[in-house]
């Protein structure tokens, strides 16, 4: 048995050596994708929103606003002092042409209205078609406005002699302070949430696609029939496919983890044995899924179609970039059909909370179930119809 698997493994490596492109794909694709995804999705905070600031007031309050906006990384401000109505019209035009994402109007007489206890209005116009930037922009401006109002109230109390000074006044009008502490990820580094997602997706992509085409390729070439007349058993044929791609996937995991650590500063503080076990079981589960896809496909293009159909929903549903809790109940159960879901949960727990085997036991068991089921069903199907092309 071991000798038969050995010959199959040698054959598979020969295929890889002969097929340079596939070899390059298998060796470098995960690392390259990790870098791309890492930079693309690694920092989900919105920064540098193109914002035009139209200062028609020129007074103190307008100055405060301009200062605050210029200090915030949320904005990439373009301040127009002494702006006129023509500038407002031009800003509307630029918003339509998508040259800016928002503009803030600090109207004439803003500071005077503020001092004279009349309604002071700051106008902000936002491109609502971008549902991602609009909320962060509003949150930031809202925070500034609350602050300005608090300052206004505090300075009034000081002026009327009801408070000793500004600081005292502030304590009176805004007495509650929110004190926040972050556990497990103290700097709230988004990489620690996003990078496990990237790693999981990339490894899933590699293992499922590569494995899905393996048996399908033998069928397409007619070599499956030739293998079927040899004394090789279905289990040996599967192991012969599994071992080489398992080893390559492990190599890729190491590469990807190195990139995640040194380029994106992901924390890998957990117990190494727990992390390693999670990775191994996850790779086996994904390879199993690929194998199942391969067995039910008649040729490589069918296999790739099925693999893509399987992988695509996992990008959204398995919780790679957004927690599963954010998904509607109706689709949430679909997530449990991806070993990726369990891996992401287990992996995040392991690297940030120093989880023990007991802590990730459920995730490990679920992934093990995938391994057993996919390989069991694959062997049964192949044994039933060995020569199907």
């Amino acid at each position: 048995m071991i000798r038969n698997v050995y010959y199959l493994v040698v054959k598979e490596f020969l295929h890889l050596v002969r097929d340079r492109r596939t070899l390059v794909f298998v060796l470098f694709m995960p690392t390259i994708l990790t870098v791309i995804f890492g930079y693309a999705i690694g920092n989900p905070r919105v920064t540098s929103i193109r914002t035009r600031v139209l200062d028609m007031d020129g007074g103190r309050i307008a100055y405060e606003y301009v200062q605050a906006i210029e200090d915030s990384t949320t904005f990439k401000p373009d301040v127009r002092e002494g702006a006129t109505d023509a500038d407002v019209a031009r800003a509307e035009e630029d918003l339509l042409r998508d040259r800016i994402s928002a503009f803030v109007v600090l109207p004439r007489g803003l500071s005077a209205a503020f001092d004279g206890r009349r309604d002071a209005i700051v106008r902000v116009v936002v491109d609502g078609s971008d549902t991602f930037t609009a909320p962060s922009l509003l949150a930031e401006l809202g925070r500034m406005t609350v602050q300005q109002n608090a300052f206004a109230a505090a300075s009034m109390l000081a002026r009327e002699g009801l408070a000793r000074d500004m600081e005292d006044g502030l304590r009176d009008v805004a007495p509650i302070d929110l004190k926040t502490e972050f556990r497990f990820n103290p700097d709230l580094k988004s990489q620690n949430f996003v990078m496990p997602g990237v790693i999981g997706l990339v490894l899933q992509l590699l293992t499922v696609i590569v494995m899905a085409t393996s048996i399908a390729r033998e069928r397409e070439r007619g070599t499956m029939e030739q293998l079927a007349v040899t004394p090789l058993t279905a289990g040996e044929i599967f192991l012969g496919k599994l071992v080489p791609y398992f080893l390559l996937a492990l190599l890729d995991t190491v590469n990807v983890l190195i990139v995640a650590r040194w380029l994106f500063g992901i924390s890998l503080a957990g117990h190494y044995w727990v992390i390693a076990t999670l990775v191994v079981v996850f790779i086996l589960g994904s390879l199993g899924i690929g194998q199942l896809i391969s067995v039910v496909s008649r040729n490589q293009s069918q296999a790739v179609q099925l693999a893509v159909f399987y992988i695509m929903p996992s990008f959204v549903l398995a919780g790679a970039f957004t927690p599963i809790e954010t998904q509607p109940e109706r689709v949430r159960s679909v997530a449990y059909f991806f070993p990726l879901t369990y891996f992401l949960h287990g992996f995040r727990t392991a690297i940030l909370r120093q989880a023990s085997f007991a802590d990730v036991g459920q995730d490990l068991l679920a992934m093990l179930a995938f391994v057993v089921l996919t390989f069991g069903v694959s062997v049964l199907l192949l044994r039933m119809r060995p020569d199907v092309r």
Partner: protein
Amino acid sequence: MARALYNARRDGTPDRQSAVSAREGAAPVVVAEGLGRRFGHLDAVRDLSLEIEDRQIFGFLGPNGAGKTTTIKMLCGLLRPTGGHARVVGFDVTSQHAQIKRHTGYMAQTFSLYPDLTVEENFRFFAGVYGVYGRAAAHRMDELFAQIELDELRGLQAGRLSGGMKQRLGLACALVHRPRLVFLDEPTAGVDPAQRQRVWNFLYALCDAGTALFVTTHYLDEAERCHAVGFMLDGRLIARGTPASMRGQLQDRVVGVEARQAVDAMRALRGVPGVDDVTIHGHELRVFFARPVDAGTVAESLRVAATRAGAPLGRVYPLAPTLEDLFMTYSRRGTAAR
């Protein structure tokens, strides 16, 4: 062979057959009884009974879709029969296919080796999975490659070989474990005549060395070279025997006729009572009769019919039947039955 079949039929219990097969020498390599395979509503193979002697080349004939490949797959243990039973090299095809695989070789119709691996790598791989490795594999490779003239091609990727070379490599890979019986599904399809000759010389050498061969082919001249042939049509084995005895079925039933206007003459002669079919071969027509006839006696009625159609005949003479004639006769019968 007929007697062997008679014996097998008479004491047809599986146990007795295995006892017969286990005996060295004359034991048949294939014994099939009532073998059948159904795909949904389609009977690909029906009630096939067959016996193949050891150390023989058995030619398996029949039009495309007659059930030849399905039969081979059942005998190799690739496909489970849905009816009847069969023993191959002494083992039952349903319950002992693992043993059958160890003692038989199979070469598929289409090239089914790895095109990206070299000739040597392909051979070493199949040697390995058949349990031939190390020095034994190297020795077997030298031996086979010399016989089959593959020695200079060892380092070449299999995908770059010509059709004939691919077939030879396929053969070498099917023979690596010295099987007692080899199934060859159209081993010479798409191979030029000189290469076909080489392949056949090799097959004879193999047979002489003690291997039985089960060969499907579309080339009727190749069928003539087999020790025994079987003819399949619509899933049934409708005739079998030696090529000579098969041809004997058409003895005195083929008459040659010379005609200038061949097509007109063919149409006219097809209407003559007793004539089964007429085929054109240049200026010669081959006229098939449903029953044995004397060429001199039927000549008159043929001439009359042809002259009436304005296509007068030249000489009329008896012809020796060929397997091709038989093949055409059977195929025609099959088409008529449908």
